[in-house]
């Protein structure tokens, strides 16, 4: 069997690859921002919200954690139009990723919140802070710090999961690789390149968020 790797026909399509990388990063950035926000709100409601909303949060988290991401994506893109909600592929992709990351991070952040020593909350209440101030100023920053490595891992998982979004023709990285191999029939090389690019992106994104967390999320004061 003859193996002759020809990377040039793949690399020649670099504008496609670059667009793919840009979309993958954009999807990841948007879903990280809104997904962590959603997850944090859910974690707050689950731990200190009114009693009636807890079953809804639990239901949402369990629903998402026990179904495949691709089904969630297809539901939003193909099934919602039947209900009169028509979204572009890109918006549907972001929405699916936000909902997915929201559920997983809700559980992760909840674990961080529940590890808060009771005395921290009591000290803050004694200083006349409102319950919301106690949460945002005293409970949340150390809670996020505790679970930040787990959150970053989850962000990476969601980023890699975004490869599925090519299925509804969002032009992310795996979509670009697939398009390239359909043009030049260099499937092996195209997916080797995609693999290497995903690997590089993962390492980059992980380091970025580790820095970002220290700098802006829980350690702002430490500079």
């Amino acid at each position: 069997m003859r193996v002759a790797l020809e990377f040039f026909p793949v690399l020649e399509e670099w504008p496609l690859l670059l667009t793919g990388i840009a979309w993958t990063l954009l999807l990841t950035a948007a879903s990280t921002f809104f997904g962590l926000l959603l997850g944090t709100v859910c974690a707050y409601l689950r731990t200190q919200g009114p009693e009636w909303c807890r079953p809804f949060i639990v239901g949402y988290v369990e629903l998402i954690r026990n179904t495949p991401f691709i089904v969630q994506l297809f539901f939003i893109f193909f099934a919602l139009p039947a209900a009169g909600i028509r979204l572009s592929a890109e918006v549907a992709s972001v929405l699916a990723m936000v909902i997915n990351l929201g559920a997983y991070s809700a559980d992760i952040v909840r674990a961080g919140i529940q590890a808060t020593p009771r005395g921290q909350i009591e000290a803050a209440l004694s200083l006349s802070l409102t319950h919301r101030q106690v949460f945002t100023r005293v409970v949340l920053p150390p809670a996020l710090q505790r679970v930040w490595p787990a959150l970053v891992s989850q962000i990476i998982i969601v980023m890699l999961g975004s490869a599925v979004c090519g299925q509804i023709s969002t032009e992310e990285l795996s979509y670009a690789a697939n398009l390239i191999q359909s043009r030049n029939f260099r499937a092996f090389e195209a997916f080797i390149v995609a693999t290497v690019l995903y690997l590089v992106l993962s390492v980059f994104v992980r380091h970025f968020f580790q820095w970002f967390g220290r700098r802006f999320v829980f350690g702002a004061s430490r500079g």
Partner: protein
Amino acid sequence: MSTVVDSTTAIDIQGLYKSFGQVRVLNGIDLKIAAGEVIAIIGKSGSGKSTLLRCINGLESFDSGQLFVQGQPLQYHNAKAMRTLRQQVGMIFQSFNLFPHLTVGQNIMLAPTLVQGISAQNAKTRALELLRRVGLAEKIDAFPEQLSGGQQQRVAIARALAMSPSVLLCDEITSALDPELVGEVLAVVESLARDGMTLLMVTHEMGFARKVSDRVIFMHQGRVHEQGAPETLFQYPRTPELVQFLSSLTS
């Protein structure tokens, strides 16, 4: 002994009852504390000392009875009223409870800026003033984990003082400290007492209670079992329970 008979009442507690499930922890507490009075609360572990303090600033609810702070009734279910009350009643804990992600300065400035709307600039000036008072001005940018227990507790005192409370509750604030660090914290408390702060302190430091307090309260089974000026109470205990408690300390 007391020089405060004619001043206003800081705290007025009438018939306070509190149970945790089947366990009655406060069993009818009646207590009047004058402004500027320094009270030491002593008693066996489990006698309800912490619960009493925690009721005074609403960290714990009570089942029946009445509690007034500066003449205002404590309204446990009115969040706004509770916050107003807590600005007047500071609390210091055995475990310091400094916020680990904030510097010493930020720990002290947090509540004044958030709750009282004081500008960051003014809050910082005040924080520095308070830190000087507890002897830690140079630690303003340190993080709690970089401080000794005694230093952390002095910062916690400065943090409570930043809200300008009229009453300070101290729950065994030296119990978690290494013996050699107890003195520096007690010195700060003593200076507060001298400056006329109303103080309620649960303490096992009998020497300190004797030296600093105007009145000692002995709690037993959820009641104020015996009380009086420190000299009389320690020298001439009247109830067998107090006699037994005091002798258990020396042995």
